């Protein structure tokens, strides 16, 4: 995955459950500053919440970074963990697939809520998810 050029507008460490709310708030604030529409913000922040919780529950924690990109204006996040990785990404993206206590709609749901979704996962190395949307 090629990295965005600028410094992130926000960065949140995901170490405990409360950090998922902190990640939502950070993304929400950046989108407010971009003048995002209510529905777009709700969709993107919901997707961020799913991805952040995944990194915490399955990846043993991680970090989420938020960028404001121009031309065209959009928001981008990257969430990285150094957990066990996802053996079968296609299976994990399918609604109803769950290895933990969730309903198995998180990852596939997040992908439906954003305009661009990239996932890179290597067993034993970790998982990186990037998501992008217009504000």
């Amino acid at each position: 995955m090629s990295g965005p050029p600028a410094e992130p507008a926000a960065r949140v460490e995901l170490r405990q459950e409360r950090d998922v709310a902190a990640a939502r708030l950070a993304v929400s604030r950046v989108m407010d500053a971009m003048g995002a529409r209510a529905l777009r913000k709700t969709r993107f922040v919901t997707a961020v919440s799913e991805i952040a919780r995944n990194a915490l529950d399955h990846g043993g924690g991680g970090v989420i970074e938020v960028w404001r990109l121009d031309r065209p204006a959009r928001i981008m996040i990257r969430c990285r963990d150094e957990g066990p990785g996802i053996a079968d990404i296609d299976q994990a993206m399918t609604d109803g697939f769950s290895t933990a206590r969730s309903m198995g709609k998180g990852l596939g749901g997040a992908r439906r809520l954003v305009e661009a979704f990239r996932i890179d996962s290597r067993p034993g190395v970790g998982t990186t998810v990037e998501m992008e949307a217009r504000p």
Partner: protein
Amino acid sequence: MPEAASIYKVDKVLLVAIRDNITDTDIINLQEDLSERIVSEKARGVVIDIAALEIVDTFVGRILAQLSAISRLLAAETYIVGMRPAVAMTLVELGMDLPGSKTALSLSHALRALKAKGLA
């Protein structure tokens, strides 16, 4: 459960206000407190207020479904109120349209519905 949720009694109905930063640990306490209070206060109605929630992800959606199911099994009719329009649209896209839960636009709508059935 110090901050993430509170249970109030309004008329004969238990009102549960859920806040934005609710966690797994809070949920277990909330489920326990709510089920005990439904029984001890002989509540026939429960209203879960989610107006404070900017978003509802699959985690919180699952909590709402579970709270509704527990209340229903304890014979208390349960309404979820205060859902924002953008949250409703997002939940449908997530495939979580909360089939087992009743909703009302606001607390007063839910109380009116419960009163009409003699439950509040």
